[in-house]
């Protein structure tokens, strides 16, 4: 007698089914969202870069006593002024790196595979770095100081790649601004935080899936040439776009952007053994969480949301620091989001 074949779904764990993983649980009991691919414990040297949401991961790692590398530390022991100057925000003072092409640009510069342009912007008697327009609130005192600071940051960024075991990168955007003739990319549209917008020099485009995948693959490949042991942990920022230049409504533009970023992360994590993806985006944005973790403007992530994301992160790592009492969540008001300046261009605050 032939036994009918058992469905392959029959033996799947509870977390594979929406009903048992989501519908019948409190959102706060949803668990096992992430199984880490490689070890990350309190001794593992880890660096963090990316969009504004990446700042939460670095802060949480630091607060939990993980070995978060700060390759460009502030003077002394971190007084209150430091975040305003972008110290202790990322592992080097790069400012936000929103796109995968911008990450590739930073990696190429740090690796010596390309030379940063000489472009600097003057604001009165002060000088701004177009690639880090907000790291000095009032700009640099001189061109020489701005140039020296950029060299320090590039060296620090290169050192962070060399010394890290895990490189955490949070993907934020697919829309970007670049120099039309030279090709290099700006983190923020010129004329927004600093500089002057010139339509003959500054162009806009939107990265598609292929561009995003290729540039992130390039960046990871180049970083692993510098440090063959480097592992990469990707996340996607759940923070919606502040504004879109695509011509679309900001909601579908956000969906398109986040979908591309999420798909690229999935593709790289599926094909490269040294790449993993942590679902911070899903914890905030999935319908299972009902928008609970967004602030009233439905864009910013509230402190409880950040705390929930990081609790999932540390629970999955199952390291001893994760069992220590959780520190207070970082205050989202302290997160430096340059993209938010785009709304100010229209007088929206």
């Amino acid at each position, binding site marked *: 007698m032939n036994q009918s074949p058992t469905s392959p779904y029959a033996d799947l764990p509870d977390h594979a089914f929406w009903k048992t993983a989501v519908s019948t649980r409190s959102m706060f009991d949803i668990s096992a969202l992430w199984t880490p691919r490689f070890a990350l414990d309190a001794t593992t040297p880890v660096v963090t870069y990316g969009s504004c949401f990446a700042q939460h991961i670095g802060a949480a790692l630091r607060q939990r006593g993980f070995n978060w590398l700060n390759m460009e530390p502030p003077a002394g022991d971190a007084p209150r002024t430091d975040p305003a100057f972008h110290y202790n925000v990322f592992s080097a003072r790069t400012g936000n790196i929103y796109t995968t092409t911008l990450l590739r640009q930073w990696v190429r510069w740090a690796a010596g595979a390309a030379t940063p342009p000489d472009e600097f912007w003057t604001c009165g008697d002060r000088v701004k770095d177009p690639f880090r327009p907000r790291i000095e609130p009032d700009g*640099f005192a001189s061109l020489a100081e701005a140039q*020296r600071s950029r060299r320090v940051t590039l060296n620090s960024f290169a050192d962070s790649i060399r010394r890290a075991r895990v490189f955490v990168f949070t993907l934020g955007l697919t829309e970007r601004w670049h120099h039309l003739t030279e090709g290099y990319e700006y983190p923020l549209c010129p004329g927004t935080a600093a500089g002057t917008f010139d339509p003959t020099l500054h162009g806009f485009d939107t990265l598609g899936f292929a561009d995003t995948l290729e540039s992130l693959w390039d960046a990871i490949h180049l970083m692993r040439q510098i440090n063959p042991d480097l592992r990469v942990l990707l996340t996607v920022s759940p923070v919606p776009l502040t504004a879109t230049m695509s011509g679309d409504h900001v909601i579908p533009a956000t969906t398109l952007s986040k979908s591309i970023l999420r798909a690229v992360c999935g593709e790289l994590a599926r094909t490269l053994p040294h790449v993993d993806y942590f679902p911070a985006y899903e914890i905030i944005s999935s319908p299972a969480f009902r928008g609970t973790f967004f602030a009233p403007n439905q864009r910013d992530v509230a402190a409880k949301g950040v705390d929930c994301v990081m609790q999932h992160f540390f629970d999955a790592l199952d390291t001893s620091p994760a069992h220590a009492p959780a520190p207070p969540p970082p205050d989202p008001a302290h997160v430096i989001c340059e993209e938010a300046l785009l709304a100010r261009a229209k007088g929206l605050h």
Partner: protein
Amino acid sequence: MVEVLIAGDSQTGALFHRVRRHPNVALVAAPGQRVKNIQITPDGQVTGYEVQLNSPAAPALHRFDLAYIYADMAEPLTLMPKRLHRYSAAYLAAHVTERLQDSHSIRLARAMAQVLPPRRIILIPKPIPLSRARAGFAAMTLQDATARVQPHIGFPIAHLTSGICAPDGTPDPAFYENSADWLGEVPKPDAKPDHDNDHLNTRGGDLLFEAFKRDVAARFIPARGNRHRSSPPTHPTPPPPP
């Protein structure tokens, strides 16, 4: 008679022989301890000093018309790292301003402000340029730094360096020596290589004390005038004994 308190660190040594001749000026000092050991008790007594002149034990702060703190206001900067070239001038200025607000001198001033009105607590910075205190940070003098701190702390800062330092704050070496002149009050510490010309000598102390007296006069006379115009008493009511 005006009653004045000077609290400080080893810098006060140069003032000793002049203070002795002015019984209305009391001096308490914690040499070698900066001023971090000097405390104000809840009932307003000054404690924690090692040396005193013209003062009973644990003087009551509220009996003084003015309290001066003469110490190294730049002392928090000794914790700054060496590689200052990494930082922008704007960041260093902001950093220095913050650090200076957390100096032992200003902490002591804040403690005194529980007893005396802040305008009657005056900080006298140790007259050295920050470039001496922090190699590599020569762009800012102590006067620059204290000017940055002034709006944040709420206490007057008196620069009493006329004749002792150049207008840019550079000390005149003729008025400095390697170690404090304690006139036998405490063992004179050995000269330290890193304290090269770090303390005023007796001649420098004379100039400083003359400037100090002028500052007292300038501050006290208007205050007394106010008192005679039926303004509230300048002496706050001492707190009840514990």
